[in-house]
C-alpha cells in the first residue's frame, strides 16, 4: 500500500485541540469536522488540501485529548498519511483503529519541506521525497497492528477474529 501527495509541514506537539477544536465537537459528522481541520494553526489547510496529500510533523503529534474526531477529521480531509518523529499514544491507537495511515520517521520529519512531493510505502516504511530525491527509512507497524489495518480497522478486525474463534 502506498500514498503519494504534497506535504503540509508542522512543528512538534501538534495537539488535538488544534487538529479539531473542541468548539466543533458537538457533532461527530466526519464531513463537518473536516471542514475545520487544523484551522487554529493553519487556516488555509482546508482550502488547499487535496486527496492523497501528506502531513509531516515533529515529535508528539496528536498530543492531548482522546478525541477520535482528530484522526477522523484528518482522514476525511483527504490526507493519505501522517509522518511524524513520534505520535502521542492515544492518537497512534486511534489512527490504527480507524484506518488512517501513520508512520514514525524522524529523518523524514527533519528533512522534508512543505510543498514537497512525497511517496510513502507502508509495507516497507520507506519515505521518498520525489522533489529532492532523498529516501528515508521509517518504522513499519508490528505485524499485530498491520493485521488491524489490513482488516480495515479494529471493529472489522475483531468481528473477523471473533467469527473465526
Amino acid at each position: 500500500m502506498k500514498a503519494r501527495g504534497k506535504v503540509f509541514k508542522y512543528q512538534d506537539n501538534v495537539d488535538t485541540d488544534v487538529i479539531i477544536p473542541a468548539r466543533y465537537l458537538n457533532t461527530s459528522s466526519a464531513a463537518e469536522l473536516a471542514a475545520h481541520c487544523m484551522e487554529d494553526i493553519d487556516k488555509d489547510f482546508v482550502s488547499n488540501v487535496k486527496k492523497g496529500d501528506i502531513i509531516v510533523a515533529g515529535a508528539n503529534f496528536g498530543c492531548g485529548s482522546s478525541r477520535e474526531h482528530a484522526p477522523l477529521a484528518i482522514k476525511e480531509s483527504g490526507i493519505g498519511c501522517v509522518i511524524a518523529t513520534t505520535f502521542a499514544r492515544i492518537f497512534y491507537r486511534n489512527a490504527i483503529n480507524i484506518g488512517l495511515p501513520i508512520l514514525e520517521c524522524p529523518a523524514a520529519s527533519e528533512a522534508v519541506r512543505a510543498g514537497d512531493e512525497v511517496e510513502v510505502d507502508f509495507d516497507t516504511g520507506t519515505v521518498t521525497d520525489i522533489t529532492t530525491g532523498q529516501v528515508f527509512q521509517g518504522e513499519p507497524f508490528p505485524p499485530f497492528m498491520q493485521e488491524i489495518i489490513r482488516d480495515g480497522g479494529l471493529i472489522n478486525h475483531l468481528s473477523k477474529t471473533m467469527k473465526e474463534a
Partner: protein
Amino acid sequence: MGMTSTEKILARASGQEEVHAGQLIMADLDLVLGNDITSPVAIGEFARFGTDRVFDKDKVALVPDHFAPNKDIKAATQCKCVREFAHKMDITNYFEVGEMGVEHALLPEKGLVSAGDVVIGADSHTCTYGALGAFSTGVGSTDMAAGMATGKAWFRVPSALKFNLTGSFRPYVSGKDLILHIIGMIGVDGALYRTMEFSGPGVASLSMDDRFTVCNMAIEAGGKNGIFPVDGKTLAYLKESGAREPRIYESDPDATYEKVYEIDLSTIESTVAFPHLPENTHPISQCGEVKIDQVVIGSCTNGRISDLRQAAEILRGRHVAKGIRCLVIPATQKIWRQAMDEGLFDIFMDAGCVISTPTCGPCLGGYMGILAEGERCVSTTNRNFVGRMGHVKSEVYLASPAVAAASAVAGRIADPAKLD
C-alpha cells in the same frame, strides 16, 4: 525478573504469570467509560459489531459531562444519543444531570474503580484512577466500542519511569504543583507510551485528592498511565466509596525502570504553566507581572473538595479584584453539597465568585466561561493549548487552586503565600 505494579496488574488481566515492557497483550477490562463527546462515535462503531448488548451492563459507565447540561441543540442531540443507548443496553452506571459530575471525580467517588483494576475510558484523563492503584488509561471511541462489545482491549505493556518522592509540601503547595513541576522537568512527551510510577516515603503525605490530581495529568507528559502504591489512605478511600475488594500489587524491588527521578517535595514551589504547553512551567517567584481576566477553579484535575477548601482558605474575607471573573465549579453533586454544607459557598459568594453546576464546560472551550481575543485565564484545569478555552489569541495559565484563588484576588498571577 521483577515486575512493576503496572506489569503485575496487566499480567493478572491477561491471564499470565508474568508480562514485561514491550509485550503485546489482550487484557480483560473491569470498566469501560465514555462521555457525551466520545460515546456517540463509539455507539456508532458498536452498532457495526452486530451485537445487541454490552459485555457487562455493570462494567460500562456513561457520563454526559463535557457539554452537559446541554450547551446547544447539537450537544443536546449527542447527550440524547448517549441516554438512549444507556437505556437500550440497560447500563447500570449512566449518570444523568442531577446525579452526574465530571467523570474522573465521579467514578472513584461512586466506588466504580478499585485497586488492581484495568480501566479504559474514551477520555484522555482516564489515567486519573492510578491514584487508587489501578491501571487506567485513555483510549479513543473505537477502543471504547470494542471494549463495550468484548470486555477486552489490547495493550503494549509500557516501560516505566519512577518518581521517588521524599519530604512533604510547603504551605500552599499541592499535587498540582508537583505534577506541573514534573511535566516542566521531563516535557510534554517525557513519559511518552510509559508508566509514571510515583513512590517513596513522600507518598504518605499526599492526600487522595493530591494523588488524583497527579495521576490525572500523567497524559500531559505523554504517559500511558500514572500509578501510586496502595496504602492506608487508599484503603480508607476505597472503603468509604464502597468499591469492590482491592487487589493490591506492589512493584518488585528489582523491577525495571528506564529512569528514576528523585523529588524532594519540600523544594517544590507553587508552579504555573504558561501558554501554550503544560511543560512551559515557571515557579511562582519567577512568574513576573501577568495581568488576567478570568479564573476557573474546577475540572477533573482540581474540582474536588480539598481543592475547593484550599481556594476558600485564600478567598475567606477577601474579594475578587474588580473586573475579574472567577468561576468555581465543584466536580460532582456530592462535592457541591459538601462545599455548601461546609460554608465554602458563602465564602465564594462573598468574594464575588460564581458557582456553577458540575461540567467540563470551560476547560475545553465548550461553554460556561469562554475567552475572548487577548484574554488571559488562570485555570486549575489541565491544558493550555492554543485556543483551548476560546479564542485562538486567548491564553491559559495552569495553576493550583491556591494560586488561582490568589490570582483572582490580585487580578494578576499571584503567590498565595504572599497575598496581603
